[in-house]
């Protein structure tokens, strides 16, 4: 049939796919049988068209009219043949369906007939079965009726049996309990007793039972006694103990009392541990690596931190065996012992206590007593009390840890201490113990920083003392080996005395090294593997406030401050500080200002990753302070050196009788000394400071002639017209000079260079000279002597100063003032002065030929 449709359809309808056509066929069949529920919507959509040949509203008239109107004759013919074909195929389809259905109907009829026969046979069998069942029921009822009596008897018998057994248990109970007691099977005894207890209680009105009960009570009392005894003895292990407690609890002992007893028992044992620890603290033996110095390394090494501190080669373990074999344990051992003995048994106690009293399944009347809360409260109090004692011991021990040598040992000890306390924290969540422990660690760290600061400071002061000794050591032949080794410098073995730059470099290098090593050891506190390093204090405050501020910044401030003190204390009371030290320190402070401070702080910030939460001291502020100190030191140096030269000059002026002196033949020795000293100061300063700028000077400054008083004596007046026209006695030139020149500041701050320093010193000296001269009266030769002296100074001093005019001016003033103070002012010929001075130049040991200009050398015979 399919084939038929296929063959006939192609002309009119587009070639359809198979399933679609099938559906259409089914749809039509359904429609036929009235089952059109499925295709309803589709049909409805189509149904509106009266021209749809398959739709329900098909109107043949309309359809025909439409065809006739729309199609040509050919098409109508085609349409007709197609229609005929379709009708034909539909007819054959219908025939096939009818045939199929008929066959099915036939087979169904056969089956029904067969079933009818089978059912009839089954009905008979069912009837037979029901009769049988009725007879069985009957029999069974009869049997149970006969057996009922016997069954009741048996039940009664078995009841009696159990009762008897119970009674037997009861009667045997005292004996059994006794036996248990003998065998120390306390647990068994208690459980037996518990089983019997209520029964005995119930029947206690009967005499026999009363007897048993009393017996049992006596025995149980004895047992409880024994248990308590055992509990009290304390010799037993923790496990035994807990067993005891459990049994006693079962025996209705009051839990509170038990808690107390348990804790007091534990306390006695923990206290023994604490006493052991305390015993270690007690003997304050005089010991310590600080007191001993290795003969080979010198005192400077006392601070040095072993890179592998904590290893067996650490200084304490190295020194101790030789010193005091009975010497105490180090802090790590101490803490170890504390942890292993005290903390671990404390943990054990806490754990078993919690097991016994807090976490036990609550049963019966015990539950109502609210034991866990009470027990926890007691435990906290107990732990707190003991921990406080433990902490105080630990703190005492930590405080004794004064030697700053092996920080790693301390850090490791603290770490262990802290780590072990975490166990307590886990066991006892609400306890304050771990936080207290952390606090101790924090305090120890703080204390440590203080100690390091003190150590740095004392190191610095020791270094200064060393430098001082090196400076004081005789310049000639004095071996500076000691100094070099003290400072760890390279000068060991050298015969030449350590020069200033060497001293400076060794000093600053050793201080820097010291700071670095201290930083390294402090850094241990923040190492990754240390448990407390991630506490907030060690992350923030310790780094910024502790290390940076309290340690590094404070040390730098200390350096500046102690330097300043040199200026103040030594200033008035006879300058105990050697000037060279002042100079050296000044340079040190200046170096700090330019580079070292920045370097140190950067180093610190990098090492400790300091995050500045709180405001910290700025680098610039520190640099400012250092610079101020450097300036102050240098000023003071100038003052001190100026003073030394001034004193020479003053004595030389004050002690001489200038009226009755002889005609000058020579430069006075004092002047030579002044020039010599100035030269050596020049050398000294030149070692540490740069040359500095000076004004260009004339080609032959040493040859400059003095415009001495005689040439300037003119009857003119400098002052405004209100002075009367009396004989003029004032030095015109000097006054004019003053009018046009800058005011000379005598004790003024100097710059950080050689020329400025020397200018300062020379200014001070010459001004003193001037003031002293003004207080004296001179004769003719006195004036001439001063002239000679001044010319001599003129020859040598100009080269040290920044502005030679300053020297000229001051020397002019001196000579001018002398002339004023002269009874018989007859100045010496300039040429004579020059001759005397040049002769003088040859007499003094030629100091540093380099500084003498060729002109004056060539003039020497």
């Amino acid at each position: 049939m399919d084939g038929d449709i296929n063959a006939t359809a192609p002309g009119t309808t587009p070639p359809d796919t198979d399933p679609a056509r099938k559906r259409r066929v089914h749809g039509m069949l359904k429609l036929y049988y009235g089952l059109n529920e499925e295709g309803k919507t589709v049909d409805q959509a189509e149904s509106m068209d009266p021209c749809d040949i398959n739709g329900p509203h098909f109107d043949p008239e309309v359809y025909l009219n439409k065809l006739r109107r729309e199609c040509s004759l050919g098409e109508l013919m085609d349409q007709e043949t197609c229609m005929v074909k379709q009708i034909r195929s539909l007819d054959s389809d219908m025939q096939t369906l009818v045939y199929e259905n008929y066959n099915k109907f036939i087979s169904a009829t056969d089956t029904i007939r067969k079933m009818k026969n089978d059912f009839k046979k089954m009905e008979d069998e069912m009837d037979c079965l029901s009769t049988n069942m009725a007879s069985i029921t009957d029999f069974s009822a009869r049997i149970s009726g006969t057996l009922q009596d016997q069954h009741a008897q048996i039940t009664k018998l078995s009841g009696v049996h159990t009762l008897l057994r119970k009674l037997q248990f009861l009667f045997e109970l005292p004996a059994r309990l006794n036996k248990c007691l003998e065998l120390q099977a306390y647990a068994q005894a208690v459980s037996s007793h518990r089983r019997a207890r209520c029964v005995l209680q119930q029947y206690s009105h009967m005499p026999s039972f009363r007897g048993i009960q009393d017996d049992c009570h006596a025995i149980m009392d004895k047992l409880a006694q024994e248990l308590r005894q055992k509990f009290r003895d304390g010799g037993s292990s923790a496990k035994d103990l807990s067993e005891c407690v459990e049994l006693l609890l079962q025996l209705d002992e009051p839990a509170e009392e038990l808690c107390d007893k348990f804790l007091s028992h534990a306390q006695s044992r923990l206290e023994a541990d604490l006493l052991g620890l305390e015993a270690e603290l007690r003997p304050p033996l005089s010991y310590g690596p600080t007191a001993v110095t290795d003969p080979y390394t010198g005192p400077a090494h006392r601070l040095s931190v072993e890179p592998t501190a904590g290893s067996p080669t650490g200084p304490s373990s190295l020194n101790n065996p030789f010193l005091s074999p009975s010497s105490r344990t180090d802090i790590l051992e101490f803490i170890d012992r504390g942890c292993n003995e005290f903390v671990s048994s404390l943990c054990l106690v806490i754990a078993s206590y919690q097991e016994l009293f807090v976490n036990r399944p609550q049963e019966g009347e015990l539950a109502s007593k609210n034991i866990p809360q009470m027990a926890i409260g007691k435990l906290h109090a107990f732990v707190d009390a003991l921990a406080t004692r433990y902490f105080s011991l630990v703190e005492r021990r930590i405080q004794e840890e004064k030697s700053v040598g092996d920080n790693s040992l301390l850090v490791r000890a603290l770490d262990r201490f802290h780590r072990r306390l975490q166990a307590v924290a886990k066991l006892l969540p609400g306890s304050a113990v771990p936080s207290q422990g952390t606090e101790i660690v924090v305090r120890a760290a703080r204390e440590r920083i203080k100690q390091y600061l003190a150590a740095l400071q004392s190191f610095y002061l020791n270094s200064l003392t060393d430098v001082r000794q090196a400076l004081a050591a005789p310049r000639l032949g004095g071996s500076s080996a000691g100094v070099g080794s003290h400072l760890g410098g390279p000068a060991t073995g050298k015969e030449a005395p350590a020069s200033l730059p060497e001293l400076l470099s060794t000093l600053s290098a050793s201080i820097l090294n010291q700071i670095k090593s201290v930083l390294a050891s402090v850094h241990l506190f923040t190492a990754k593997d240390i448990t407390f390093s991630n506490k907030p204090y060690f992350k923030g405050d310790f780094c910024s406030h502790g290390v940076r501020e309290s340690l590094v910044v404070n040390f730098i401030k200390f350096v500046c401050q102690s330097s300043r003190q040199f200026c103040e204390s030594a200033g008035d009371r006879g300058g105990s500080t050697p000037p060279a030290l002042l100079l050296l320190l000044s340079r040190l402070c200046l170096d700090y200002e330019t580079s070292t401070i920045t370097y140190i702080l950067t180093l610190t910030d990098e090492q400790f990753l300091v995050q500045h939460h709180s405001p910290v001291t700025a680098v610039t502020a520190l640099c400012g302070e250092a610079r101020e100190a450097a300036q102050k030191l240098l000023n003071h140096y100038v003052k001190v050196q100026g003073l030394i030269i001034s004193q020479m000059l003053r004595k030389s002026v004050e002690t001489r009788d200038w009226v009755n002196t002889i005609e000058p033949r020579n430069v006075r020795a004092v002047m030579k000394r002044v020039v010599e000293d100035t030269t050596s100061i020049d050398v000294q300063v030149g070692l540490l400071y740069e040359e500095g700028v000076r004004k260009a000077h004339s080609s032959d400054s040493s040859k400059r002639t003095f415009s001495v008083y005689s040439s300037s004596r003119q009857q003119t007046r400098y002052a405004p017209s209100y002075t009367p026209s009396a004989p003029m006695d004032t030095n015109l030139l000097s006054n004019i000079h003053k009018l046009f020149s800058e005011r000379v500041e005598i004790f003024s701050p100097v710059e950080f260079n050689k020329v400025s320093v020397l200018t300062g010193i020379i200014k001070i000296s010459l001004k003193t000279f001037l003031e002293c001269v003004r207080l004296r009266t001179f004769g003719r030769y006195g004036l001439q002597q001063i002239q000679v002296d001044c010319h001599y100074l003129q020859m040598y001093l100009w080269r040290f100063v920044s502005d030679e005019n300053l020297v000229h001016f001051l020397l002019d003033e001196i000579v001018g003032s002398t002339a004023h103070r002269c009874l018989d002012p007859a100045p010496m010929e300039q040429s004579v002065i020059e001759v005397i001075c040049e002769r003088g130049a040859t007499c003094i040991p030629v100091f540093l030929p380099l500084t003498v200009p060729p002109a004056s050398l060539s003039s020497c015979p």
Partner: protein
Amino acid sequence: MEDDAPVIYGLEFQARALTSQTAESDAIRFLVGTQSLKFDNQIHIIDFDDENNIISKSVLQHQAGEIWHISASPADKAVLTTCYNKTSESRVVTCGAVWRMPPEWESGSHESPDDPHNSHNPQNLELLCHLDNSSHGNASCVLWEPMGDGKHVISLADNHALLWDLTESSTQATISSSATLEGKGQLKFTAGKWSPHHNCTQLATANDTAIRGWDLRTMSQIYCIENAHGQLVRDLDFNPNKQYYLASCGDDCKVKFWDVRNINEPVKTLEEHSHWVWSVRFNHSHDQLVLTGSSDSRVILSNMVSISSEPFGHLVDDDDLSDGEDNHQDEKTQEPLQDSIISTYEEHEDSVYAVEWSSADPWLFASLSYDGRLVINRVPRALKYHILL
């Protein structure tokens, strides 16, 4: 302010000695002694007319020698003492003498200093008596008994302190007692001051770096501040209102204030000068005003409120001010009572060896530099009113 400008007077000789005329309380008058080895020395009497800002002067001849120290009698305006250098047989000796000014100088017309005729016929001082100390060495200064009757003077000569009684209207001087400083080396008093407190029974002297106090009744030392200054002590002055307070100055460029009951530490130290400080003076009425002169050619006026006798100012006056002038009071309370430098005077071009307050006007002072320049200055008005109000 116009009248705050300094008034300058120039002497033709170099000069170190300056004093105010102590007994004169009406006119502002200073005495200056000159130093000249070649010409006759003079004493210039300088009167300052405060209202017209005019200086007038008289010159008296002091032919005995160059004047190193001058001081006026507190009782008699016309009497004064000088220490002067005398050269004889190529020896220089310093002597002390009491002089009387001739009576005419005052009655004589105060001619303008520009008048050239005035200086041609100067009058001579009348010698009353020599403080004959040839056996005691060179006199460094002569001190009158403060507020006394002009009958007692002390002269410091080398290492001796000599107390003189002047009798017969000061024409005779006799040593009533003396004290001698014993010690190693050549000791020499450089400066001294007679304390106005304790009934004028105390004297303070300076030698080298030490300051010593003396009891004049027994002529014995009562205290000694060793190393008071790093170097030489140049001058001393007593606080006129606080009996134990003493100021000193010296070659270490410092001015120090001492409480002589505790001599271990100075109460206060000023370090403002850049060279030796030669002179220090308390204001006679308002002792917070301290004047110092130095060889750095500067005069510095300091306000040492914290150690003065009026450390809190006039508290009483605050009440008077509070009801009307709130602004004014605010300013007053805001101003901290701190020691400060009031002013630095730079009119001098040579070392200033002497400064002195006027005895008549407490707001006026004079300073003298070596080149003979005398400068008269006033305390700044703002400060003056601040102190007074």
